[in-house]
């Protein structure tokens, strides 16, 4: 417990006021003050699919296989260079240079892939952190989060203005939850709109292709391709920039997310789906299939948003399948006329 005290701001001369030096008592350990009132937000249910660690036997298998393959490749490369040198010396040097460049390129790519995966993971951690701040409402944690967010989007020219506004707004703020909500309103709203537009466009394409494709296999392939592209696009939009392996991981997470929340999403949109299917199917069976595939793509887009968005949906509404119905219905009406 410290005594109250005051100091003039112009001249800080504590020497003259030695009598009122602050004393410090060791604080008595007491029970923590329980915060009776806090903005209790429901924790985001973001499943992070836990991969089972491989059995040790399998691990040995893969490790040894990896060692053998690398040894073989190394030997082959060594043999190749040796042969080239045996043929002509200049050919050997050229081969050597090409090999060095090749190895460097492989290493650079690997670093990039690893960085992408790490970034994807850190977005997950970031979202969890933001959800925690929304509940705890701690100012320091919020400010730290805002700082990290600004680092994450530092290279984004399209967010320069919102970033400046965020900086100005959060300067005077004291509460963590306010900061997170402000950041969401300022930074995420434009990104959300673009993610929605991407999703709507992909869904439209899928619906049209399904409606006119000659074979079922074609549209399945197209749905897969579009979904993959969409997920990648949304992840890039939110700042994840997934590479090849990152994209695989992302696909896994989205599938996991769809598997978990699929039931929940079904609850709010199954009626629309049935209606859409029924009405559209009456016009044309193919159109109905197109709508269903389009809706599936919409789901993928929403799941990708939830998985890659660095902040949980709190101040802004999470898009639902219903939001995209108009886009799909337009196609249906156009398709119905032709």
């Amino acid at each position, binding site marked *: *417990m410290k005594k*109250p*005290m005051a100091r003039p*701001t112009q001249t800080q001369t504590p020497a003259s006021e030695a009598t009122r030096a602050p004393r410090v008592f060791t604080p008595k350990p007491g*029970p923590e003050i329980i915060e009776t*009132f806090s903005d209790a937000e429901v924790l985001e249910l973001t499943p992070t699919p836990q991969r089972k660690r491989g059995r040790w036997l399998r691990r040995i298998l893969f490790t040894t296989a990896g060692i053998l393959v690398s040894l073989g490749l190394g030997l082959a490369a060594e043999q190749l260079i040796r042969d080239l040198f045996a043929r002509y010396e200049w050919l050997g040097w050229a081969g050597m240079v090409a090999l060095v460049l090749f190895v460097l390129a492989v290493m650079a790519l690997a670093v990039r892939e690893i960085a992408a995966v790490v970034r994807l993971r850190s977005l997950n951690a970031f979202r969890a952190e933001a959800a925690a701040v929304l509940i705890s409402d701690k100012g320091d944690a919020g400010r730290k989060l805002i700082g990290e967010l600004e680092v994450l989007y530092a290279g984004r020219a399209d967010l320069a203005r919102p970033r400046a506004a965020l900086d100005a707004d959060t300067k005077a703020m004291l509460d963590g939850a*306010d900061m997170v*909500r402000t950041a969401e*309103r300022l930074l995420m709203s434009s990104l959300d709109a673009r993610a929605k537009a991407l999703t709507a466009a992909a869904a439209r394409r899928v619906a049209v292709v399904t409606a006119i494709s000659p074979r079922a296999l074609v549209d399945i392939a197209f749905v897969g391709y579009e979904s993959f592209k969409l997920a990648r696009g949304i992840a890039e939009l939110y700042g994840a920039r997934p590479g090849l392996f990152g994209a695989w991981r992302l696909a896994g997470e989205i599938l996991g997310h769809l598997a978990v929340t699929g039931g929940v999403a079904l609850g709010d949109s199954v009626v629309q789906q049935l209606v859409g299917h029924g009405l559209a199917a009456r016009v044309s069976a193919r159109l109905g299939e197109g709508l269903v595939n389009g809706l599936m793509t919409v789901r993928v887009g929403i799941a990708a948003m939830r998985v890659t968005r660095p902040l949980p949906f709190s101040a802004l509404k999470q898009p639902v399948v219903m939001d995209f119905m108009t886009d799909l219905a337009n196609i249906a009406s156009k398709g119905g006329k032709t």
Partner: protein
Amino acid sequence: MAQPPANIVDEVGIALGNLGDAATGVFTPTLRLGVTGLSRAGKTIFITALIHNLLTNNRMPGFGPLADGRLIGAQLAEHPDRGMPRFAYEQHLAALTGKEPHWPESTRRISQIRLTLKFQSGNWLTGMLGTSQLNLDIVDYPGEWLLDLPLLSLSFAEWSEQALARARRAGSADDAKPFLDALAAIDSAKPALDTDAEVLASTFTQYLRASRHDGRALSTLPPGRFLLPGDMEGSPALTFAPLPTPDQAQKHNSLYAMLERRYEAYKSLLVRPFFRDHFARLDRQIVLVDALRALNAGPEAVADLETALTDVLACFRAGSPNPFIQLIARRIDRILFAATKADHLHHASHDRLEAVLNRLVANAARRAKFVGAETRSLALASIRATSEDVIEENGEKLDVIVGTPEKGERLGDQVYDGKTEIALFPGDLPEKAESVLQPDGEPVELNFMRFMPPQKLARTEHGDAILPYIRLDRALDFLLGDWLK
């Protein structure tokens, strides 16, 4: 036997008023915001800051409708009740933003204002109809009058008993001595004389006045109009005092019977209309509590504040909203408890201030929750008068606030002149909120000063002053946000 605060005639009047509001409010609904607070809690400043921030569309990132872009703007509108003074928003603003900024004078009379908010609903059905409007009615009144509300449920005998017990408390001995002496010299059973009543009333008023200065900062001292009589000064309804309850029934011409009649007249002439017209029909309530002033004065003042708040809040009608009953019986469905003057503390201490506030309003909040109202509490500063800094003193880092204390404020033997800016470390609030109420607990050394309003204000591009605040946006979001959905 406690009486309900409104009688049957009032109830009918209130119900008819509500029905009328419901009929006229089909297109433009009216939200009545009750700004409740004892005197010096910061009601006027809160209302001024609220109106100013809404009118000038100040940046309020925590106020959802504005941050989401749904709120288009606000405008002052004429109040339908033309018999009452208008809240002097312009004068108060001028005082705060003028050449020499100062706090507006304390409120001495009742006034009201209506603000019309224009917004577009985010709801797809209402949103399609274009912009919507909402009237926001706010009443400002002297905080002293609020203390009268609990009197509505007390008879003269009950009130006398409480008031005399309070006057005889050890701490009040000096202040109450003239009154108690006068009381001892008068026999309440003998025929009534106006001079006796006047002596009693004047000494009682002096005692009430003395108990309210900063050193004691007591809150539970009705009747409030004794302190701010207005035009009624000297009328019989304001000339009475508590008397010890006699053993047998008194003749109707005795002093006791006369004062009892005057007490009842006071209630029916002054208190009941005030309650009926302004407090019985509220939708939202913000309870402003100046906990710091009571903390400065010590545990007795804090306990007193708690009692006053609990009694006053018992008069309000909280409850969960019900669209059918709403037509005739309006209920307060959201109550915000706000510890004002949070800028007198570093923000690291706000959690503890909120804990103290929660302790103070625990009873009232529990009751409100029981009947279904939503409550929240926060540390608030309608206008932020200080900034924050960290200074190092003897190798120890202290969180300080920087501001200019008002003339006459003191710490130790230093008295400030109202011009020097200082960095103040006001002391730590106790870790356990309970200890501020215990007189024998560990001594809490605190010194919160009153600061001058911010002397240099930033301006918007339209030349409007930007009033800095702490969590005012959050308060507005809780109080108004869902009506502007």
